């Protein structure tokens, strides 16, 4: 029994990262109908920003305690990563949108941006891995054979909190209504006096900011950073978002956790070589039965 509970906790932690990244994919897709393939690399940039922010605060210039560093690093990392996301929107996606380019070209541009982020990191920082400093003093709680660390609890709580916040913004606020409006009809919405560019920038701020948070938490949980760390987890989170029903916030959240549970479950029972095979076969079967994803609805307002 404790073995199963332990694996549920493992899956919750791993799924939290998929969910956090999938939320960013789904937000941008919901508003722009654009698959932002650079999102996984924005997550990686977030982890690196967190590394430098934490290094600076812990360093001799400020000399803050690890806990204070953590509390300050969260908003600062989210802010700086949001700046990266907005910069990408400004220099890559907006010019194409202005010229009325087909969505395909924007998706290819997103792929390119991801590669540029990866390889510029490789060029600037080199191939050597970085070790993320310990910010939260780790406490291990052992409850009847099940172990939980405070860090795991922080990660899971953060994923749920981000989901609740985003859900609130999108469904209960005016700006959320505008986002849903753009998703519904981006040609009519400017006629209502809604500043479409500002709403899109806001979407990128939200998506990239939470990718930055995911990067920070990921770097704390798995403290070995490398330039390509965002690639595979980004793809998988994207698939999770599609299975959940891309464009739907609940879909991204549940899809992320679903993938986390399947992956951990497969590895628990079978050799690890079967993990991706089984995980993605299950996801494929879900899409067969419901091609729009679990929460997706064909041709309607999403987000």
């Amino acid at each position: 029994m404790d073995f199963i509970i332990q694996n549920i906790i493992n899956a919750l932690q791993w799924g939290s990262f998929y969910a956090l990244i999938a939320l960013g994919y789904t937000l941008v897709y919901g508003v722009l109908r654009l698959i932002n393939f650079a999102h996984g690399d924005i997550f990686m940039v977030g982890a690196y920003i967190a590394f430098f922010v934490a290094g600076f605060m812990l360093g001799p210039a400020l000399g803050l305690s690890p806990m204070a560093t953590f509390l300050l690093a969260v908003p600062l990392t989210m802010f700086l990563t949001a700046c990266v996301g907005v910069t990408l929107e400004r220099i890559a996606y907006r010019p194409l949108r202005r010229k009325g380019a087909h969505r395909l070209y924007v998706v290819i541009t997103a792929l390119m941006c991801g590669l540029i982020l990866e390889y510029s990191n490789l060029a600037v920082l080199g191939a050597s891995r970085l070790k993320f400093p310990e910010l939260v003093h780790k406490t291990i709680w052992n409850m009847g054979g099940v172990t939980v660390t405070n860090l795991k609890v922080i990660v899971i709580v953060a994923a749920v909190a981000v989901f609740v916040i985003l859900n609130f913004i999108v469904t209960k606020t005016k700006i959320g209504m505008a986002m849903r409006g753009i998703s519904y009809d981006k040609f009519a919405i400017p006629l209502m006096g809604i500043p479409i560019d500002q709403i899109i920038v806001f979407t990128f701020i939200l998506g990239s900011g939470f990718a930055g948070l995911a990067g920070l938490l990921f770097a704390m949980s798995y403290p070995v950073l490398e330039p390509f760390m965002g690639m595979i987890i980004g793809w998988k989170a994207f698939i999770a978002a599609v299975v959940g029903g891309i464009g739907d916030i609940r879909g991204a959240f549940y899809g992320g956790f679903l993938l986390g549970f399947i992956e951990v479950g497969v590895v628990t029972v079978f050799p690890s070589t079967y993990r991706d095979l089984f995980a993605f076969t299950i996801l494929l079967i879900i899409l067969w039965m419901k091609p729009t994803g679990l929460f997706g609805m064909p041709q309607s307002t999403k987000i």
Partner: protein
Amino acid sequence: MKLSLHKMGLLALAFVLSFLMIVPAFAADTIKIGFNLPLTGDIPEVGDGSKKAAEMYLKDINDAGGLEVGGKKYQLEFVYMDNESKAESAVNAALKLIEQENVVAIIGPNSSKQAVPAGGTCNDNRCPMITPWSTNPDTTKDRPWVFRAAFLDPFQGPVAADFASQKFGAKTAAVLFDVSNDYSKGLAEIFKSAWEKKGLGPVVAFESHGTKDQDFSAQLTTIIKANPDFIFVPDNYNQVALIVQQARDLGYKGPFMGSDAWGTPDLIKLCGEQCYGNYFSTHYAAAGAAGATKVFIDRYEKAYGSTPADYAALTWDSIGLLVQGIQNAGKVDPNPRKERKLIRDGLASIKSFDGITGKSKFDEQGDPIKCAVVVKISDQGEFVFEQSVCP
């Protein structure tokens, strides 16, 4: 003005062309050696350390006027090619070195994951290759053109099993390995059979993971549930850092036993105090070395500010082996194909070699028979000599 610019361009072109034509004329007095190294990718530290050792060797030889072969001195030229720590890139790098760079021999790749496929390519193209760090038997098996400087996993696996059973008094073992890495997979299997042959107790968990994995909690939960006396982790240092930390988070308090892929100063940088007090088998121990090994370590530390890891020392020995092979050949043929044949025969005629990682004898496969050492990661993060195991 425009015309003169045009003329200058032509002149520059002519100059470049003539320079290009002169180079092959120089080439007769140089010996070109290729290096197939992981300068980027999963294990960039390994490529970097090998390159630093090679640069040191190169400077020694060339500053002394070159390498004397058959009464004539030749300058050495080293060409470094990045294999991105990938198997397919290692094959490409080997082909590039052979066909475009026309090297007479190749040193590297380091990791078995790259050395096994690249060894096949070098053997098929009849170019001698020496791998410094690969311990998988397949690298040199039935490949007369491939040699190595490191001991083999069939030797290393039992060393780890014997040591753990004595030191920890262990009866049961668990293994976590990288299933997509020839080195890790091969060594895990050899260890398992060696352990079971001892008849103390079974290998209670035999779990695998992928190269790019970052979360091992599911595998570790299974391992911890099986309650082993220790966990054998034949993995690269970057994964070890995550595995050890996650195992501790899941409440595992027992020891770990590692293999030679742990032996990088970066292990301590990435893993920190979590790795202190664990043991691994390796090729040499820098702390407490003597003689030629100490001279090498001191020079390396002075030049680069860090302690050379085992792959740097083994690269040094590989170059030493190659130099001896070239000198055994007795002459340098300007045709690289003929020269490769001469070098291969020269290498095959080496019966024993006294390197900085210890004395070794060679068997008919081109594999050295040499001692392994087990080191402990001290509380200062140093790799301290614990015990030496000889075949």
